[in-house]
């Protein structure tokens, strides 16, 4: 007997526009969220939480390529370089969501996209289509965090593929840290919730998501991006 895996994939924008405080906060917030991720995993012994990290700029790169059990996961800081080519990053994720390498016996994966800008690749939707073409990609719990006022929220909303799910706006270091903390925990819990499949349960209207992102406090004394 064995618990089922929950594959959690960070998809992090590391383009030049992320330099300075933004990338610093991402590094800090993910490192600080690890104990909370472990606590969530501990509370759900029937789920094995496995973490991977993909960064993207001009090209995608697996920062942590092999799924690591959260108990052994440590954060290695990411740096910035180049542009914002989202499509290739999403295609790289899609390849990992095929079965195999994904097992059929698993809980829903969690995909968390963090970005502060607009894709420079005009065909970025091809990457999104590649994810949607995989069975696990269609079922994935998706979280999108928009950093600052320049982030293209429509792109992130398309990534979420559900108009009822809001993009998390992080306009300050404090909000970004809160968003990352939420994605690290609540989204993992949501991945193990049973869901009635198809359009069922509401006569054709898609069911409300089993998880609702928080309203992030904007009454903040920190610098605003």
């Amino acid at each position, binding site marked *: *007997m*064995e*618990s*089922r895996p929950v594959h959690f994939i960070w998809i992090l924008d590391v383009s030049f526009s992320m330099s300075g405080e933004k990338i610093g906060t991402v590094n800090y917030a993910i490192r600080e969220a690890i104990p909370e991720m472990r606590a969530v995993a501990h*509370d*759900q*012994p*029937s*789920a094995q939480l496995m973490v991977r990290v993909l960064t993207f700029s001009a090209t995608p790169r697996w920062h942590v390529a092999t799924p690591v059990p959260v108990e052994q996961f440590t954060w290695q800081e990411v740096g910035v370089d180049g542009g914002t080519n989202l499509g290739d990053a999403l295609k790289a994720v899609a390849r990992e969501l095929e079965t195999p390498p994904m097992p*059929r*016996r*698993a*809980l*829903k994966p969690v995909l968390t996209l963090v970005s502060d800008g607009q894709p420079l690749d005009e065909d970025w939707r091809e990457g999104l289509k590649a994810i949607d073409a995989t*069975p*696990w990609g269609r*079922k994935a719990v998706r979280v999108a965090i928009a950093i600052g006022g320049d982030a293209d929220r429509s792109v992130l909303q398309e990534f979420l593929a559900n108009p009822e799910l809001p993009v998390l706006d992080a306009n300050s270091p404090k909000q970004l840290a809160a968003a990352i903390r939420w994605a690290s925990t609540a989204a993992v819990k949501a*991945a*193990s*919730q*049973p*869901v*009635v*499949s*198809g*359009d*069922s*349960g*509401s*006569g*054709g*209207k898609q*069911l*409300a998501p*089993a998880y609702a992102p928080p309203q992030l406090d904007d009454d903040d004394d920190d610098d605003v991006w």
Partner: protein
Amino acid sequence: MTVLREEKYWDVLYQSAQGPAKRRNQDSSAVRVTSDGDLVFAVADGHGAPVHPRSHVGSRHAVEVFTASGIEFAVRARAAAGSGPGGFRRLWTDAHDRMPRELVLKWRRQVLGTDGESLGEQPRLYESLRPFGTTLIGVVLTDGLFAAWQLGDGDLVVVDDDGSLTQPLTPARPELGDDTESMCSRRAWQLMRVHCALPGDPGRLPRMVALSTDGLSNSFAERDGFVRFVRDVDRRITAEGPAAVDEALQGWLAQAGRYSGDDTTAVVARNRRTLPPHGGREEED
């Protein structure tokens, strides 16, 4: 509590273990036997997510509705057996068309306290049903018939007299993750899978029929592990008798729940006509 019932033709073991992190067990099971010896049993798995807060009620109504309708179906099956090939054709249609619709509509009536017809097949109806969302698997065994219905996840496993194992209701491509079809789904009767076999001769009925909620099969790393578990239950009943397996079943289900995190319920019906006559002990070769 483990329950072993020694019916006329069947030993029936049924047991349920609450998931380790669950506030209540949302699974239900029911077993009924007619005076003719027909056996009707079912398991149901209430979805348990926050959007299904009354799913424990939904699962209880699902097994109650099934056993009531299943007994009526068994009566119709006996009548059909005496009316030639036409009777069997009608029974097949009954199993595939009448029963699924009847089960879903009766269940709606039970959980809503109304037939829901005033709501029509509209979103408002499904909003009302959603809190009660549950799966259902049920079996009817008469002298000459083995019929089963399944809506949503869970497992029906059949062991024939030659030891071969089949899962006649398993879809070609099972749902990924914890997604499932449901009694609260839109036009749920269309989603019900049906198995109807008419062996005619009681001697050709299965040796064992096992129903379980997905908390059991989800605890195994590979599907083969679950299949081996069922084979082992069958083998141990043959070798040690149903009472010995009955004693162990509680522990097995509780252990499975620690890995699946889910409530785990199983009903095992073992054909007494295929057991060794000396109470379960198999002769050593």
